[in-house]
């Protein structure tokens, strides 16, 4: 098992490569947020019927975007550390909360705002950690 999951490169990725991974995941979270919003729109007129699901454009686009998201995540994971890259995905919650406020007129309260701030600070720290 240990040979199966050993690190491929001995030297490790350069600082520029790691920065690129962080940038890629951050863009990923925008795609993920768009996918979640589209899926939410698609789910509003959801009927459990195969034809209805396939012709549900927002739902379909949402799933397609998830595919793009996964692909970009894999590319980011090539060079980036899993323990740094993975928690950055939580940035998607920030975009979804903010977008829901504008698109669906969801409420935005102090708790949510504090949460958004904490997530963004946390992600900034992870991003800085990737530079070291």
């Amino acid at each position, binding site marked *: 098992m240990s040979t199966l999951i050993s690190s491929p490169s001995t030297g490790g990725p350069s600082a520029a490569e790691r920065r690129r991974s962080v940038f890629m995941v951050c863009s990923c979270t925008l795609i993920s947020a768009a996918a979640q919003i589209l899926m939410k729109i698609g789910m509003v007129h959801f009927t459990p019927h195969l034809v209805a699901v396939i012709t549900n454009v927002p739902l379909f686009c949402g799933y397609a975007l998830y595919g793009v998201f996964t692909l970009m995540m894999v590319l980011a*994971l090539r060079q980036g550390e899993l323990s740094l890259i993975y928690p950055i995905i939580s940035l998607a919650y920030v975009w979804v909360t903010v977008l829901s406020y504008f698109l669906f007129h969801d409420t935005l309260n102090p708790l*949510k705002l504090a949460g958004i701030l904490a997530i963004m600070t946390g*992600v900034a720290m992870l991003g800085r950690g990737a530079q070291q």
Partner: protein
Amino acid sequence: MNGTPLSSILLVLGASIVGSFGAVFLKLGAVRLSGFWSLLNWRLAVGVGLYLGSSVFYGWGIRHGQLSVLFPMVSIGYVWTLLWARIFFHERFTRPKITGLALVLLGCCLVGLGS
């Protein structure tokens, strides 16, 4: 406070564990990429499969109970992933990682409470 059934909590927790293993397999597949067709390797397929499985668990879990309780529990998956990254990929626990993750968890709880 209507309470959240234990079954929902367990399903969502299960989803977070399954999803964290999805991340491990994606990483396993990612480091072996060379050329377009290498995207079709079993590790990435298992990773995507685990993610889909985790979303099924999650969807099942949130049918009952309060989303404000269940939603932040998904972020526990980040803790699992940190652990697996250390065990399987020998990634170090560093201060920015721990502090960053703690803030992310706090943020997820706050967003959940506010929902």
